[in-house]
């Protein structure tokens, strides 16, 4: 009762938004679609929630075909679109009541499921949705998407523009929802959130670059990554890009992540090169790659 996507394609006029995408989300899985704006994430969500018909391919959600059984899907899924679907002029409680009524249920009936999320905003239940902070809107939108007890939950960039504290709390809530037998497909441009999913699909320009668990994906990176530090960041970046053996050079926090074209890499040679460029406090050390490194390596090709 998860999600099955087979060879789905969708174009808008001459722009191909989704190109022959296939993947499977197992029942109860927390599955991440990881990619930047324009990767095709929202198009895919709209196809799976039956709001858009694909040009090619087929898909099933909770056992139902997205074209033939669209009505069943609409009763079985919750969808939190990237732009909030809330009514700005209704209060928190009115919004939630509205969504409950549409699905023929009530807040009381499924309170158990939303309790964890809704409790945090309940003290403000008479405040209009338009007057809420980003983090509170996000919690209300999630409550509304959950109120009819969906089997599958679609969350399209729920944490974009949200600060790190609220993002962390949001992911903790998702983990708890997963325990209640809800299959979750979530998209995000934040690579650090990818690590919190059971499996992820890295997606760019309508194509899937890789699918696996976050742990397995980082192991697939063929290159060794080095943390390089120098006191002048811009000077360091410029010097590394000019280095003839450089494969990739990317700023990464206080370091530059560097990969070398050669099999045998001698960090002393690079250190001397950098010091000759008048860079100070140079240090080079091997480091563990993360999902962002993998994404950048795959999307270069």
């Amino acid at each position, binding site marked *: 009762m998860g999600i099955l996507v087979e060879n789905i394609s969708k174009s808008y006029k001459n722009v191909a938004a989704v190109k022959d995408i296939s993947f499977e989300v197992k029942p109860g899985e927390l599955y991440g679609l990881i990619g930047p704006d324009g990767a095709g994430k929202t198009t895919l969500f709209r196809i799976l929630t039956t709001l858009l018909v694909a040009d090619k391919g087929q898909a099933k959600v909770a056992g139902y075909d997205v074209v033939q059984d669209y009505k069943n899907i609409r009763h079985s899924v919750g969808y939190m679109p990237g732009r909030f679907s809330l009514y700005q002029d209704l209060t928190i409680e009115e919004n939630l009541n509205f969504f409950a009524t549409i699905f023929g249920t009530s807040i009381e009936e499924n309170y158990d499921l939303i309790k964890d999320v809704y409790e945090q905003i309940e003290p403000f239940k008479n405040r209009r949705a338009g007057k809420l902070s*980003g983090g509170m809107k996000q919690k209300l939108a999630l409550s509304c998407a959950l109120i009819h007890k969906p089997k599958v939950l679609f969350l399209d960039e729920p944490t974009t523009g*949200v600060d*790190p504290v609220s993002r962390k709390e949001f992911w903790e809530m998702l983990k708890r929802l997963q325990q209640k037998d809800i299959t979750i497909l979530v998209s995000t441009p934040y690579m650090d959130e990818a690590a919190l999913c059971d499996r992820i699909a890295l997606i760019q320009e309508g194509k899937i670059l890789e699918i696996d668990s976050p742990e397995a994906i980082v192991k697939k990176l063929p290159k060794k990554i080095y943390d390089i530090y120098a006191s002048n960041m*811009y000077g360091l970046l410029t010097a590394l890009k000019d280095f003839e053996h450089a494969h990739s050079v990317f*700023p990464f926090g206080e370091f530059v992540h560097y990969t070398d074209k050669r099999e045998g890499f001698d960090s002393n040679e690079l250190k001397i090169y950098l010091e000759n460029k008048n860079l100070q406090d140079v240090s080079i050390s091997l480091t563990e790659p993360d999902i962002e490194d993998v994404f950048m390596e795959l999307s270069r090709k």
Partner: protein
Amino acid sequence: MKEENVIISKGLTKRFGGFTAVDAITFEVKKGEIFGFLGANGAGKTTAMKMLIGISNPTGGEAMVAGFDVHTQQDAIKKNIGYMSQKFALYDDLTVAENITFYGGIYGLSRKQIREKRTKLIETLGLGEIAHQLVGSLPLGWKQKLAFSVAMLHDPQIVFLDEPTGGVDPITRRQFWEMIYKAADEDTTIFVTTHYMDEAEYCHRVSIMVAGKIEALDTPKKLKEQFEVSSMNDVFLRLARNIE
């Protein structure tokens, strides 16, 4: 980075009725510094930034930005700073070249200056082939780079960037930061807000606002030492936890 301060804020405050959005913030930013201005949603960052760029009147305290007073010289501030917000101010219905010309005119550059800037900018950004395409048709990453360059068109002393990198892919995000490093290397001061904590590590110094006050201000390295954690994300979580 130079020793000279280009932003000096002393007790800068903004109250809306009984609510204090910005509560007496005091800090300095140096010429050529990349200064990260962080805080949770609703901590007061945007309100503080609006006062610094001269579009909102402080209700208390004082601040000098690019040598001008935020109370009395707001027009002079606007001429000496650049501003880029998450929602770009570029016109989708104008071409790349037309957008540059338009903003050059707004900033009061002469026709000759505009022509020179336009040629140089299109060349450095590698936009030659698409100079006459509508901006609306460009990928997000290009729009960001163009928006940043347009904000720098009049050679401002300081550029304010309000969450400039939301939504782009990790490579484009880094290319954008390389533009920031380059500008700072050429002594332009960068004042930037972001929700990406790895980007906080790219800044020379970082301030973290909590409920209207600056609760921490130092280099990323010293902040991590102070809070005994390994990343800026953890520093942020320590400080801003339980604030809605």
